């Protein structure tokens, strides 16, 4: 019996060879399994990320500039933007709170934008007054289409105080 054990031991480290047959198959086996596991992880990640989204376009048509009164703040609930006509010109703000994504509301009586969820408050130009919101409301790229409609791109933010003069 001890002889047999010795033989098995010898097979694992054959003289001259750096690799026993068992070690070779262990390496090949573990390597294949690791590759398969990595492939599965990539496959799962790609499968769970949709390639086509049926979400509304980021560009919103806000209509004719004349339809907005001077010093008015208009919330479009469906697209989640404010279209504001100030003395300096037009600008658009994202109406989605920068805290946790609730839709904010314009309070005409106090002249501020307020979030119903956790009480963040913003000035009319998006600047933060108070509340848990970490950032001001973003200014969104706004321009006039060839037909004279106001267009707002919700996916592109611009620096504040860049008014659109019509």
């Amino acid at each position, binding site marked *: 019996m001890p002889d047999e054990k010795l033989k098995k031991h010898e097979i694992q480290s054959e003289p001259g060879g750096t690799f026993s047959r068992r070690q070779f198959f262990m390496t090949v086996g573990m390597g294949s399994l690791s590759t398969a596991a990595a492939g599965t992880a990539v496959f799962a990640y790609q499968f*769970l*990320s*949709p390639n086509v*989204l*049926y*979400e509304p376009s980021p560009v919103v048509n806000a209509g004719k500039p004349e339809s907005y009164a001077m010093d008015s703040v208009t919330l479009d609930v469906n697209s989640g933007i404010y279209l504001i006509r100030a003395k300096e010109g037009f600008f658009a703000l994202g109406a989605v709170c920068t805290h*946790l*994504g*609730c839709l904010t509301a314009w309070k005409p009586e106090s002249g501020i934008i307020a979030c119903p969820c956790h009480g963040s408050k913003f000035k009319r130009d998006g600047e933060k007054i108070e509340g848990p919101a970490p950032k001001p409301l973003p200014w969104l790229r706004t321009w006039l289409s060839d037909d004279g409609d106001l267009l707002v791109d919700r996916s592109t933010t611009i620096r504040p105080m860049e008014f659109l003069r019509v």
Partner: protein
Amino acid sequence: MAKTFDQYFDEVRDTRVWRSIFRSGTGSSTLKRSLAIQQNVFLHLFSTKVRRRMLSFSATWYLGTLTFGTFVILVTTGILLMLYYHPSVPQAYADTKDLQFVVSSGLFLRNLHRWSAHAMVFLVFAHMFKVFYRGAYRPPREFNWVIGIVLLLITLLLSYTGYLLPWDQLAYWAITVGSNIASAVPVFGDKIHFLLLGGNLVNANALLRFYVLHCMILPLTAIFFIAIHFWRIRKDGGLYAQPSEPSTLTRAVLAKEGQ
């Protein structure tokens, strides 16, 4: 002489059909009673012997069992609700209202599901506090505490994913806020948010993903961990007895019970 109920039951237990199902056989010796537990696929998770003290209400307040009871109610009512609910944007809210106002017993089942869900969250926390203050989390039971934490998280995730399914304003904004909390995770936050919702907005994909999580993935995971949680009680030496509580029945206890 009229036969007692026990004698009838013993006769049934001795029939060929019964013995082909339950192998432990007739008789009520300690061995037979142990085998009845040990050889049952469901009961074998549990200890064959339990200290009498551990069966009293004051030892555990039955909080774990009650939590499991609410889980069973939730699975049963949930499967029935699935028969009328379509996880699609045009139908989800209407189906919820149909369940309340059109389907026979729909309101009862929906409310039972809802209240059991609240009760389960409450009971899971109560169970945790009871285990904590009793000191039953200490070695060798520390790993079962960890499994309990996993089950607590699964319970909360089940609550959260179920919240979206009625597809009303409360659901929509709760999931908007909740999924935005997930984006606060460092580095991968936005990716997690995207994968969780299957898009950038709480939309049709999000509804379907939450439905699958709520009805398949999370309940199956919960059942898996519940099984381990129960089995570990036996493996860790049964329910925790405090040093002041007799680990075996002393003569004094037996005498008291005899009264």
